[in-house]
């Protein structure tokens, strides 16, 4: 049957409208001001800050206050945003996207920035009223309205999303119990020491934490009345949030030639195995320089930068991704933590761990062959960025590694040459002032 309406033609089609999609759109527009750019998103809003959902739920931010870009972003950048619309199917060889609304879009370059979907385990009672996931604004709105009549909640999963929803619910006066399957909270991003500090902090805030257990069933009639743990213990509650993780959303690649492992596999140009089709963000499996392998790292920063690389490449500027790794700043219940990379060494032989803990301040770096491959900073996090920068740059730190955890650690610890390179100091050596002036335009100095 012939298509009953004409397809919309676009140079660039971005499926998704979060960090990766915006990163790509901004990079595209840096290079190509005029190529037709269309974005499709099943969420009916402009891009918003997903990590702020907890602030929204806690009543600290309105939807308007959590928009990721100014309201006129799409107009300013000549972007057609088809929001509240879902791409149903892709025809790669003819480069046609079929939308749920019946429309068709033909593209020249395609980006799959489709994000992730929450993992919901198969357990009894998961379809009862009062059971939620926490990934979208719609989820947060549903929880917010349900929470008005809720007194006790169980959060299944003690990861980043679990802790953030716990903080929001606590602020609403709801008593929360976290049930974590592994032996400690935040186990994928923190080491044991930092996890125990975080857990103690949760308990001090009045949160109950149960580790080494899972929820095997949600009890109640139509509405949730409690959960049953694998131990048989019951915990009464009227609200359950399932936060055990997110899987790459790859359904559009089904029955296509696009290679998918855990996520959509991309090369260093964020290109999938199908020419002209790119991917980034939580949907993609991109290069992780710590593990020297492709991995899914569902991190806002990696999504944005991956999108940026994809955007440049889509616009014809060949740009190589240097890889990303896990990196998180946590600030929950008044406790600030920065962590990145592999925080627990996998291979003891080549690895070295340096750590310090005093007065509740904890710092740790993991080195492999004198290159930083992991770090954790608890409470004092100001210098974590310098360490993360060294990690990102794969800098050999052998000459100053003992200083990495010093209270006064900074660029002063770097070898002079490295410091000059970092600070891009004009000229070098004593008396180089005039040389410096030659290199830098319009220098103005003090009186």
């Amino acid at each position, binding site marked *: 049957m012939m298509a009953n309406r004409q397809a919309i033609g676009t140079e660039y089609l971005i499926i998704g409208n979060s960090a990766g999609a915006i990163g790509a759109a901004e990079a595209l527009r840096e290079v190509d001001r005029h190529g037709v750019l269309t974005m499709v998103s099943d969420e009916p809003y402009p891009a918003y*800050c997903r990590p702020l959902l907890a602030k929204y739920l806690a009543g600290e*931010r309105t939807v308007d206050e959590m928009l990721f870009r100014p309201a006129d972003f799409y107009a300013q950048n000549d972007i057609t945003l088809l929001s509240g619309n879902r791409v149903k199917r892709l025809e790669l060889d003819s480069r046609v996207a079929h939308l749920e609304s019946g429309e068709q879009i033909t593209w020249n370059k395609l980006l799959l920035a489709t994000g992730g979907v929450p993992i919901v385990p198969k357990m009894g009672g998961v379809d009862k009223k009062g059971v939620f996931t926490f990934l979208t604004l719609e989820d947060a709105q549903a929880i917010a309205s349900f929470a008005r009549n809720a007194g006790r909640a169980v959060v299944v999963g003690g990861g980043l999303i679990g802790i953030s929803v716990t903080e929001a619910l606590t602020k609403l006066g709801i008593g929360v119990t976290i049930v974590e399957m592994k032996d400690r909270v935040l186990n994928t991003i923190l080491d044991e020491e930092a996890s125990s500090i975080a857990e103690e902090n949760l308990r001090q805030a009045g949160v109950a934490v149960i580790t080494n257990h899972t929820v095997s069933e949600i009890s109640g009639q139509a509405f949730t009345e409690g959960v049953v743990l694998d131990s048989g213990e019951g915990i009464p509650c009227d609200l359950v949030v399932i936060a055990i993780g997110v899987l790459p959303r790859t359904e559009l690649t089904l029955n296509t030639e696009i290679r998918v492992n855990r996520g959509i596999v991309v090369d260093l140009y964020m290109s999938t195995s199908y020419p002209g089709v790119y991917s980034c963000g939580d949907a993609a499996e991109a290069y992780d320089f710590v593990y020297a392998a492709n991995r899914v790292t569902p991190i806002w*920063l990696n999504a944005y930068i991956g999108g940026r690389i994809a955007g440049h490449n889509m616009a014809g500027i060949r740009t190589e991704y240097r890889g990303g790794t896990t990196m998180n700043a946590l600030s929950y219940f008044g406790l600030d933590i920065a962590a990145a990379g592999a925080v627990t060494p996998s291979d003891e032989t080549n690895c070295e761990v340096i750590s310090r803990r005093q007065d509740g301040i904890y710092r740790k770096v993991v080195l492999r062959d004198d290159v930083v491959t992991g770090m954790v900073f608890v409470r004092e996090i100001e210098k974590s*960025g*310098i360490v993360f920068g060294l990690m990102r740059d794969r800098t050999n730190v052998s000459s100053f590694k003992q200083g990495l955890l010093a209270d006064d650690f900074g660029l*002063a610890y770097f070898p002079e040459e490295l410091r000059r390179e970092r600070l891009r100091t004009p000229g070098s050596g004593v008396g180089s002032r005039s040389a410096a002036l030659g290199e*830098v335009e319009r220098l*103005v100095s*003090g009186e």
Partner: protein
Amino acid sequence: MNRVYVNEQVCMGCGLCQVYCQAEHSMSKDIIKAFNRDLLRPLPGLRVERKGPVCFPVQCQHCDEAWCVYSCLTGAMHRDMATGAVVVDRDRCVGCWTCIVACPYGALVRNTTAKVVAKCDLCPEREVPVCVANCPNEALMVGEDRCGSPNWDCHRVEGGTEAG
């Protein structure tokens, strides 16, 4: 785009840059009042490092490839299109500190009271930033960045010109 450069050979670590920075960003903008009377003493947008004979201030480099901007969860950290400076919109900042982990210079500071990040804004109301204007030894300079910032996230391998 401008940024502040330091000649560490000339810096004597007096810390006046930091003092003037704090005063400039205080309510009163008066150096005595800012440290003596203002209820909320502002945080400095720079940090003086001292280690043995080596000393120099570190402030935001207003990088071309600004990781703090890329990492910002809310869009608060952004580039001012008019001046090219990397600035933070305090109303949009939620104090998640992701930018602090992203900044390879350690140039961002937590304002834990206001739950917003503090940084160098190049003193938008002045022609010359106060730290530069008040450096007694002329160790600080402000100027157009022609060296370009290191491309932390990528390097262009072929074709095209530098974008942005």
